Each structure stands twice: as C-alpha cells, then as structure tokens.
C-alpha cells in the first residue's frame, strides 16, 4: 500500500496541469484566457507552497514520519507551477517582449516580489537531491529555510496585485502565517529539550 502513496500523490499533483491544458485546447477559459491561465497557475503555486509547509506540522500532529517523505516532491511542484505561471506571463502574455517585462519588474512591486520568489526557488531545486543533501550537510537545512521567505513573498505578491485583500489573498496570507508560526514552536521545543 505504502509504495503507491508517492506515485499516487505525483499523479494527483499533475491534475491541475492537465486541467488547464484541457481548458486551453477545448476553449474553456472564458473571454480573457491568458489572465485565466495566469491566475490558475499562480493560485496552484500558492496551494503547493501551503502543502509543502504542512508536511512537518502533520508529522508532528499525527506522529507519522511518512509525511516528510512527500515534501521534496511537493516542493518541486511549487517550482513547476511557479515556472508555468512565470512562463504564462513572460511568454504567452508578453511574447518575450523584454522591455515592458523589465519595466514591470522594476516599477510594480507585486511583479518584483513574485519574480524574487521564483529566483529564490532555483537554489532549492538545484540542491533538492539526496546527494546534495549529503554534500551540504548542515548548510542544507539552513538553505532550505528560504522556503519561508518564498512563502511570504508569494502571499504578498497576491495581496499587492489584488484590488482588495478580501477574501482569497487574505486567506492564503493567514494560512501561510499559521504554518510558519507552527514552526517557531517546534524550534522552541527543540531548544528546551536539546
């Protein structure tokens, strides 16, 4: 049973991707299709960030170590959907027309922070393998704490681009803050017991 969990989760994690492909090729995206794809991939990036951050609290609450073994895959899906999101914006929306894109990155703070979050994901992807984990030893853990910064950036990106914070941008922000707050507790307990 256990050996099917990971492949099952992998297939499940790709369903948003196939759903959007279906919508693109069967013309189900509505009057503003590019915006629809951008919002869809952006929201799934945030969902996978939340899922990735949920694994170690889940391990703690259920006392089952299996959760943590999903973390790498979920993290890589964050990068997958974030990259689709970025490519939609750069390629589909702006046709690799770099001038307005660079203008946006510099002038619009939500674009800047979103782009920064994507850039910060790159070192995490590069060092995601078991080999890299062994190679970097203690530094690996420190490096991968970047995901907390990325999560906050992602949430701010959503808040800043929205006309109003109600309700979805606020909901994601709260979820991320709660997930990060749970970690502070873990750390304190480690210190106490250590």
């Amino acid at each position, binding site marked *: 049973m256990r050996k099917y969990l990971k492949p099952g989760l992998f297939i499940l994690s790709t369903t948003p991707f196939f759903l959007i492909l279906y919508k693109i090729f069967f013309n189900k995206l509505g*009057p503003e*299709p590019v915006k629809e794809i951008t919002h869809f991939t952006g929201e799934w990036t945030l969902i996978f960030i939340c899922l990735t951050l949920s694994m170690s609290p889940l391990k703690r609450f259920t006392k089952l170590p299996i959760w943590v073994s999903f973390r790498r895959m979920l993290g890589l899906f964050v990068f997958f959907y974030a990259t689709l999101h970025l490519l939609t914006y750069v390629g*589909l929306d702006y046709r690799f027309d770099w001038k307005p894109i660079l203008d946006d990155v510099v002038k619009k703070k939500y674009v800047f922070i979103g782009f920064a979050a994507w850039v910060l994901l790159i070192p995490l992807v590069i060092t995601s393998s078991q080999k890299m984990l062994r190679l970097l030893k203690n530094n690996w853990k420190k490096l991968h704490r970047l995901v907390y910064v990325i999560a906050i950036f992602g949430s701010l990106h959503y808040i800043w681009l929205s006309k109003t914070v109600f309700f979805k941008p606020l909901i994601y922000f709260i979820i991320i803050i709660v997930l990060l707050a749970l970690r502070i507790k873990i750390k304190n307990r480690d210190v106490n017991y250590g």
Partner: protein
Amino acid sequence: MKKIKYSEITPEKIYKNRRSFIKSIGLGASSIAISSITLASKSLANDRDKLTSYKDITTYNNYYEFGTSKSDPYRNSQIFKTTPWDISIEGEVEKPIKLTMEEISEMFVSEERIYRLRCVEGWSMVIPWMGFSLSKLLSKVNLTNKAKFVEFESVYDPTQMKGQRYPILNWPYNEGLRIDEAMHPLTTVVTGLYGKKLPNQNGAPFRIFIPWKYGFKSAKAIVKIKLVENMPTSSWMWASPREYGFYSNVNPNVDHPRWSQATERIIGEGVWAPRVKTLMFNGYGDEVASLYTGMDLKKYF
C-alpha cells in the same frame, strides 16, 4: 442556452453600411486605417474593427453594484427592475426637469454607434451601442453660466443590487465630466446594444459611454444628471485618488500604479492572440485631443 451570434444573422448590406457609418462620423478606427503604412499595422486595424461577440459583451462586465467578479453582473442583474425609471436633470440649469425613460425614447432617435471600450484593467472590446449624443439631451435644459461640470449619479437600491450592501465603493456610483467633454458628440447616451434593448448587466436602462476614456467613467443605470460649478469627486477617485484621476483618458504613456497601460488584450481573440498597443485617447485623438490642448495629461490623469 445557445445564443445566435449577431454576425451570423447580419446581412452583408447592413454590415457594410455599418462600416461606412464608422467612416462617416470619422471614428478612430478609420483614422487608423488611413495612417497604417505597413502591413503589420493594417492587420492590427482589422483586429480593432471586429465586433466583440454579444455573449462576451453581456457576460464579462465590471459592474460592482451586482458583484465584483466579471460574471456576477450577468448572474445577479436579471431580476433588476428598470421600469418605471426617471432621470432628473438639475443643478446649474434654469429649469430642472424630470424625464421618464419613455419620454426619452420618444424625444431622441437612437442610432447604432460602434465604439471601442478600453478598460483600465488592460482589456478592450468593440461594441455596437445604440444611442444618441448626450449634448442633445442637455440642450433640452438651459444651462446657467455656472455649469462647468456634469455629475452623473447612478441608482442606489441595495435590495436589488447586492454589491451595494458592502462598502466596496462609495455608493451610489458617481462619475463626472467637464462640460465640454459632456457636450462632445462622441459622448453618448446608451439605450441599447446590438440593435436590442440594453441588457441590465450593461447598465440598463440609461447609461453613458465616453469612448476615449477608461470604461469606469461611463456610468451605468443613471438616475440623476447634475450640472455643477466645481469638479465632482467620482466614486473611484474617492476610493483611491492615487490610482484614479478625474479625467481618466485612455493614455498609453501614463501607467496605472498596478497595470501598465501601454498595451491591451482584445476580448474574444483567444488564448494565442498577442496584446495590441493601446492608442492615445483610445484612437479617438482626432476628435477629442483638442479638448486637452495645453494640459499636462500626466498631471491630470
């Protein structure tokens, strides 16, 4: 429910008449065609000419009185009552009047007017409105010499408009124009679209349309037109003065703090269609640029 596309039922003759109509009143679309030198810009002109489908025009709306999502107005406005409907013209006029919608339809002949709509969010449509110039209506009252601006007040009815139950904007919706803008022949009182009665989600029964300004300037479901001496504060200026100015002319050189205004997406063009360049005054510069001679449009955005 399957809707028949207007283009499918429009005989070619009427379609061609419509083209000549655009030319006859010298709209932006024809001026683009004249100015197009290269093949590329010619194809651009073609895209800009194509009417947006009835379905997209009537299901993709910004009308916060009925909800903030684009599909809300269509869904939530179907039971909205537009009869009886009175419009009062008051303020700096010699004799204020109140007209019913029936009186207005008897007094003025609506004609088809194909204009482009550019939303401040960076998308655009081409809409065959039915309507007449606001100046014709305003000529029915004698303005005093203090009438420098026109204020439009939309209906306030939270029982029917559920968006008005929340403080999304400073209700009722308020917009305004300078008197010369209001008197410009392109400033239109809209009573219908695609040859039909104006649907509720598009601002029935009485809205205005100002083709060279961002869409939000064109107030919907108007009940009061007030002539005033001082520049009115519109609902959007009230909500965010940094983002929305009084003039709000379509201007590719002045960015909205959150959206670039240099380009736009044409609604209905599909997922692979590129953005197109936004035109100064939405392409109606020949007609309206003179209203703003000597004004710094970066300052008066």
